[in-house]
């Protein structure tokens, strides 16, 4: 089976997506983009607890890369159009995950995204975000609705962890773009030293 890198947020969806691939026998690593100071420490603690359950259930080590993302968010806020902040943020998350995949010999990326659950999860935004990476992206939940995902989360014991109190991401703009334009996104990124940002973040990652 192939080796993949899974983006884990601490929410309901990502452990369910991971569960589906582990059940099929794939070997996975986890990447958590640490958004502090724009969140509190609850997302990281949720991811750690999700992985404790999934490691035990599937007898896999599932290494967790915690990649600092707060400084990237500050750069995006200072240098780019807030309207497309979520798409730019996702592009940096994908790039970080791909960098970890290259380092670990993984051949695909995984996400718990499902269509239309939040403003950033539209087809045009997904396209703009994932155009930043080359590896194939697997979305095990893409056609499921929220109730179906929650039912699986409850059955595997991750729902209660995901729904613990926590501070939502404060970097989300008031009116995030729902139909992003890749040309505009690329223009925004021209103001940034993208490679340097990714190098810095992944170099500072902690493996748990």
């Amino acid at each position: 089976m192939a080796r993949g890198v899974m983006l884990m947020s601490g929410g309901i969806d990502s452990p369910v997506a991971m569960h589906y691939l582990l059940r099929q026998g794939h070997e996975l690593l986890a990447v958590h983009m640490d958004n502090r100071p724009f969140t509190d420490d609850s997302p990281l603690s949720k991811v750690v607890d999700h992985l404790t359950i999934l490691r035990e259930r599937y007898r896999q080590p599932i290494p967790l890369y915690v990649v600092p993302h707060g400084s990237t968010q500050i750069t995006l806020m200072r240098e780019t159009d807030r309207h497309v902040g979520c798409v730019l943020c996702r592009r940096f998350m994908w790039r970080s995950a791909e960098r970890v995949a290259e380092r670990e010999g993984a051949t695909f990326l995984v996400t718990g995204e499902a269509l239309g659950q939040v403003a950033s999860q539209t087809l045009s935004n997904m396209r703009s975000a994932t155009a930043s990476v080359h590896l194939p992206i697997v979305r095990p939940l893409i056609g499921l609705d929220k109730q179906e995902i929650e039912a699986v989360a409850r059955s595997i014991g991750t729902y209660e962890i995901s729904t613990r109190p926590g501070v939502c991401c404060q970097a989300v703009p008031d009116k995030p773009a729902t139909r992003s334009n890749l040309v505009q996104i690329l223009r925004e990124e021209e103001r940034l030293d993208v490679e340097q940002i990714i190098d810095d973040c992944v170099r500072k990652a902690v493996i748990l």
Partner: protein
Amino acid sequence: MYRTLRLCSSGGGFEALPEPPRPVDLARIRAALESAHVPVLDARVMLIATLEVEVTISRAGRLLFKTADPAIADRAFARLRPLLEGGAPGGGPAGHD
């Protein structure tokens, strides 16, 4: 301007909103925080001040106290509120919804 502190929707922190809604001058607030020796991070569209707890201050004037402990949020709010409303940092405890 700021009257109440209430638990935010995700339950992980407390928030306060200006009443009536009114944007704040982040540059002025940053200067006031710095003059009061409060560490502050300027992300252009928001400030993050480190009091007893981290507090996000948005341009719209929303304050988010990253603690689920109401007493800690109260103390930080009491210190910030006069500063945001134009006075010096300090003041008494806030009320809750």
